[in-house]
């Protein structure tokens, strides 16, 4: 069954490491939904957080192949684990009219999103939260006419040490 998997790859911070990882997935024909290369508390260590849509068997191969890269220290597929905090960030521009403005602002309040800019025909808003919350936010704003958005891709961290 094809499912969404979030994979955290801990790597040594070497030139070209992101290209190595994304190249490996492309070379073996896997699709990447999102990839973030994030610095960590240790300047020598980066975390690359990948979201891929694949079957369980393919995910096993992907994690093994990622592990095989010389600069990879650790690979974890956190999809079936609950002890991880996963967050995503979005900036979104939605159209408004005098008639819909209040309703849109209401939604923003309910989601605890933050208004960044307000113009007569559109507004820009930012939101951080679980991926499902972001999905739902987009879904509810769609009828008002979303003009543009960018999502960060997933961020994740374990709750424990």
């Amino acid at each position, binding site marked *: 069954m094809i499912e969404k998997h979030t994979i955290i790859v801990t790597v*040594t911070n070497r030139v070209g490491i992101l290209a190595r990882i994304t*190249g490996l997935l492309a070379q073996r024909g896997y699709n990447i939904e999102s990839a973030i290369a994030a610095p960590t508390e240790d300047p020598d260590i980066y975390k690359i957080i990948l979201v891929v849509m694949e079957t369980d068997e393919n995910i096993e191969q992907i994690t093994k*192949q990622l*592990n095989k*890269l*010389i600069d*990879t220290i650790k690979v974890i597929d956190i999809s079936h684990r609950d002890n991880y905090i996963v967050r995503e960030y979005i900036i979104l521009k939605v159209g408004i009219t005098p008639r819909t403005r209040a309703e849109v602002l209401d939604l923003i309040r309910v989601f605890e999103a933050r208004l960044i800019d307000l113009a007569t025909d559109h507004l820009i808003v930012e939101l951080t939260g679980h991926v499902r919350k972001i999905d739902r936010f987009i879904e509810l704003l769609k009828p008002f006419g979303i003009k543009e958005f960018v999502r960060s891709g997933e961020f994740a961290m374990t709750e424990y040490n």
Partner: protein
Amino acid sequence: MNGAEILIDVLINEGVDTVFGYPGGSVIPIFDVLYRTDTIRFILTRHEQGATHAADGYARATGKVGVCIVTSGPGATNTITGIATAKMDSVPIIVISGQVAAGNIGTDAFQETDMVGLTRSICKHNYLVKNVEELPRILKEAFFIARTGRPGPVAVDIPVNVSNSILANYQYPKDVSLPGYKPVTNGNQKQIEKLARAINEAKRPLLYTGGGIISASASQELLALLDKTNIPIVVTLMGLGAIPADYPTFLGMPGMHGTMAANLALTECDLLIGIGVRFDDRITGKAEHFATQATVAHIDIDPAEISKVIKAHIPVVGDAKKILRELIDKVKPRPRDDWNSRTQSWKDQFPMTYNQANESSILPQYVIDRLNVLAPDNSIIVTDVGQHQMWAAHFYRHRRPRAFLSSGGLGTMGFGLPAALGAAIGCPGQTVITISGDGSIQMNIQELATCAINDISVKVIILNNSYLGMVRQWQELFWDRRYSHTCLKRVSTCPPVCPGPNANCPSDYIPDFVKIAKANHIPGLRATKPSEVDAVLKEGLNQPGPVVMEFIVKSIENVFPMIPPGKPISAIIPGRPA
């Protein structure tokens, strides 16, 4: 010391005695140091592809890391096929390429190519050296990575200014620190015990071993296990020589061109013990039809190989030699039984044969078979790619590891001659014979000059069938004999559609290989009749130095048995229909 001097010092430190390569602008500083070094022998091949395969052949024959040095741009791109060849067959080589000065990288400078980007997917690891300070560490890591764990090629790209920069306090590091690279060599105890139990309980166990036995130097251990258990065994193309070909329970090579016995054993076994093999599709065919009755055990040093193609029920990650040592003590002696008789009966029923007596032209199998008698026991056989490769695999009587070198995974035509050259340099005193086809030999034939000039004693056998035989065989069997562009004799006056050899074929083969040999100051011999085979082999093998021996062989002979591509083993074609 400058970067170039550091590089040469590292090579000496790592015990490198020979470097293959080709100079150019961005490596002149390195070549300048080679000029004054007498500890390292430098072999100037005639093409960078040749240098890479030579380093590869050297590594396969000796077990040491092979090294080549080439210039940036076209020099670097010419190594690509060689690097990919070494990657597919897990061969430890280091390819050092020059690069434009670091400050010019990214400007499309003269002879700039992104070597790290180009080689990323075809090497075990690669580096662009940004400054001379990191050069010693990178070189240390490169050697460590190439030869440990699952061996493989490492590419190191050195900008010319790094070669020229001085490093004040140079010291070659003693240790590497690679937090992300710690190959597991000790097998998990529980898994080894589980495997031993499975072996003790199996009714129809089968060993399936490959290149990993060679890289682990585990032949002795494998033989000890065999002697104790009498388990029937099949050996891949890459593993040939791990055990002597006349070992009683040896069933031959499995796979698309494997023996009937080996393939039938794969279908009927109830426990398949893969050791240092990667379940290549040339062996499994359609995966869902592969070894369907068997519990699959897999010993491999590379965790990513486990369950990659075929699900392993008993995986053991680690070094084959170490694991075999432990396994031997844990398995019970096993007498020969019905299963042994059954596999032996297949061997008797379907032997690999040929019938020279009925043929007026030379059969390629016959030439190889005669080597069993006429070539010294210490011979190293190096093949090219095609039908001749399969015949060499089957008809040469393999005796020891590292004595049959062949491009298996990439199947690189043109591998044979340069790899043989490298093997000859790595193993002086052994007879190195390359078995090639008239197609393959032309892909790196320039290396005859390298052999001649450096007196590298490679015995070149060309089995000339005037076809790209292996492809022609597929066309014959699966494409209704439409021999599209596989005839190497074809000239512009030939009819557009040609059903195969006939009375109107041109008589001359171009080029004349004997003349090419002579142009290189190498003796060139030719046999056209079966009765001439022995004389040519004797004359070629008994004189010192390189020789070219051309055998004009039957042009439409096929390699059998053959399992059609993508088909299950049951679809095997035992021989050409009468």
